[in-house]
C-alpha cells in the first residue's frame, strides 16, 4: 500500500474528513479500481491526477454516491457509510463542481442552484421567492455578477463559460459543504478565469474545508494542492506532498508512472512505496 509520511512533522489531531479503504469497482467485468486507499484531511486540498482511464472520475463518482463500490469502505469524519447515494453524500456535506455537465441549460439560475435540493414545504411545494432571493444574493456576493441583464431568472443558455463555472461553484458553496470536489474545473476557462478558480480553491482551505481537485493540468494542481495523489490504471501509484516535491520531480514521476505500469523507484528522501 502506498503511503506517505507527511504526518511525521505535523501533529494529526483531527480525523480525516474522508477515508477510502480498499475501494474496488468493476464495470461489466472490467476492473476500474483495484483497492484504492485515500485520506482527505480537514482543511486540505488534495490533487488527484492520472492519465485517461486511471479511474479518477469513477473514484469521484463513488465518493459522491453516483456509483457504489463493489468492495471497500468509505468513512466520513471517521464514521463508516454504507450504500452511499447522491442525496446522502450531499447531506453528509459533499458537494461537487462538475462544471457545465451538471447544469440544466434551459432552466433559470435559481433552478440550477437548487437543483436536487429545492427549498420546499412538506407537501413538496417550492418556496420560489426565497430561492430567487438567495440566488440574487449569491450572484452579487459570491459570483460577482454585476451585469444588470443577469437575474435569478436568467437561463443558463445566456451565461458565458466563466459565468457557468461560477454558478456551479456557488452551488457547491451555498450548501456549506465540508468537502468540495472539483472535477476538471479549469477545462475551457480563460487564463484569468483559471486564476480566479485557483484562488477560490485556496479559499476552501482557508475556510477549514477540504477539497479534491481533479485536473489534467499538473501545473494547476501543483499550485494549489497540499498533496497530490497519482492514480494509475485503477491503483494509487503514490501520494506526494507538494511541500517536498518540486513540480519537476512530480512531473518526472508522472511520466515514469505513465511509461511503466507502476511507479517503483522511490525518490531520494521519500518514503513512497511501490504499489504491489
Amino acid at each position, binding site marked *: 500500500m502506498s503511503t506517505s509520511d507527511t504526518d511525521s512533522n505535523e501533529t494529526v489531531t483531527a480525523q480525516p474528513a474522508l477515508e477510502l479503504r480498499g475501494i474496488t469497482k468493476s464495470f461489466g467485468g472490467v476492473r476500474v479500481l483495484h483497492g484504492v486507499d485515500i485520506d482527505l484531511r480537514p482543511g486540505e486540498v488534495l490533487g488527484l491526477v492520472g492519465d485517461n482511464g486511471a479511474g479518477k472520475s469513477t473514484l469521484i463518482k463513488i465518493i*459522491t*454516491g*453516483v456509483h457504489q463500490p463493489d468492495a471497500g469502505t468509505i468513512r466520513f469524519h471517521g464514521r463508516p457509510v454504507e450504500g452511499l*447515494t*447522491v*442525496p446522502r*453524500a*450531499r447531506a453528509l456535506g459533499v458537494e*461537487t463542481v*462538475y462544471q457545465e*455537465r*451538471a*447544469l*440544466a*441549460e*434551459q*432552466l433559470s439560475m435559481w*433552478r440550477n442552484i*437548487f*437543483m*436536487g*435540493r*429545492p427549498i*420546499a414545504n412538506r407537501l*413538496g*411545494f*417550492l418556496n*420560489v421567492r426565497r430561492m*430567487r*432571493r438567495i440566488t*440574487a444574493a449569491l*450572484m*452579487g456576493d459570491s459570483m460577482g*455578477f454585476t451585469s*444588470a*441583464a*443577469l*437575474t*435569478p*431568472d*436568467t*437561463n443558463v*443558455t*445566456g451565461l458565458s463559460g466563466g459565468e457557468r463555472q461560477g454558478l456551479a461553484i456557488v452551488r457547491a458553496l451555498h450548501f456549506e459543504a465540508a468537502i468540495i470536489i472539483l472535477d476538471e474545473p479549469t477545462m475551457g476557462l480563460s487564463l484569468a478565469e483559471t486564476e480566479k478558480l485557483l484562488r477560490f480553491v485556496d479559499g476552501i482551505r482557508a475556510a477549514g474545508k477540504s477539497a479534491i481537485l481533479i485536473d489534467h493540468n499538473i501545473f494547476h494542481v501543483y499550485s494549489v494542492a497540499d498533496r497530490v495523489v497519482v492514480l494509475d490504471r485503477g491503483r494509487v501509484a503514490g501520494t506526494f506532498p507538494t511541500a517536498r516535491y518540486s513540480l519537476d520531480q512530480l512531473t518526472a514521476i508522472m511520466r515514469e508512472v505513465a511509461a511503466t505500469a507502476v511507479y517503483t523507484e522511490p525518490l531520494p528522501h521519500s518514503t513512497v512505496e511501490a504499489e504491489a
Partner: protein
Amino acid sequence: MTAASVGYLPTLRSWASQIGITAAFIVLWIVFIVLAPDTFLDSRIYLSFGQTTPYFALVALPLTMVIVCGDIDLSFPSTMALGMVGFLAVERTTQNVELGVLAAVVVGALAGLLNGAIVTVIGIPSLVVTIGTQFLYRGLTLVLVNGRSYALVEVEGTPGYRLMVGRLFGVPMQFIWLVVAAVVTWLLLYRHRLGQNAHVIGDNKQAAALMGIPLRGTRIILFVLTGVAAAFAGAMNSFQISNFYPAMGAGYLLPTLAAVFVGGTSVFGGRGSIWGTFIGAFMIGGITAGIVAVGITDYYTNLIYGGIVLIALCIHAILQRRFTR
C-alpha cells in the same frame, strides 16, 4: 439597483412564446368570427367546445409534463378505453357509478405504472414502449369486452354522471374539470419538487443523476398521472354519449400531441407550457369546427389543420431563437 429588481425584461422574454401562442389563438378566433359570425357568436358552439375539447385537453396537460421530462406517451388513447373496462366490471357488479369511475382511474394509474416501469427499469425509450402498450391496452380492451359496445343509459342522472358531464351554472363540468386540472398541473410543473425534477431530467439527464434527482420515481409518477387523466377523460367521453365502444379514444392521439406542441412545449424536453397546452387544445378543437362553419369544403380540413399546426410551431421556434440570449 439590485440584480433582482430588473427582472422584467428576461421575464417577458421567457413569456414570449406564450404571448405568441395566445396572440395566434386570438387572431384565429377573430378570423372565425368574421367569416362565420352566426356560428362563432352563438353560445352553443362554446358549450360544444367546453364539452368536447376537455376529452383530449385533460390528457394533454399531464402529457406536457411527460414531454418536459424528456419522455412521450402514445398509449393514452388505448388507456381511455381500458379504463372503461374497469368501470364496467365494477359498475355492473356493484351498481355504483362512482365506484366504477374510481375503478377506471385505478386501471389508468396501473397502465401508466406499467409504461413507466418498462421505460425506467428495463430502460427502453418511452416512444417505443408506449407504441407497444398502445396495442397491448387496446387489445386487452377488445378481448375483455369481446369487441362489444355497451350502452350506458343507466349512468344518466347519477351523482357521478352529473359531476363528470353535468353543468354548473350552465358551464359544462368537463370544462370545469379541465380548468382545475390545468391549475393543478401548472402548480406541479412550476411550483413543485416534481416539476422542478422533471425539468432537470428533461434538460440534462446526466446532471439530474449527478445531483441526486430521483429519475425513475419522477418519470414513473408522470406516466401514472397521464394514465389517470386518460382513464378519467375516457369515462367522461363515454358518459357524454351514454355508450362505450372498444375503439373509443383512438382518434385523440394526434389532436392531443398537436395541442402540446402547438402550445410551445419543446419536443426535446426541459421546457414546456401548461398555458400553451390549454390554448393549443382549444385551437385544435376550434379548427375543425371553424373550417366547417366558415363553409370550406371538408376536403380542406386536414390541409388547413396541418398548415396552422406548422405555422404555430414555426412561430415558437422563431420566438425562442430571438428571445433567448
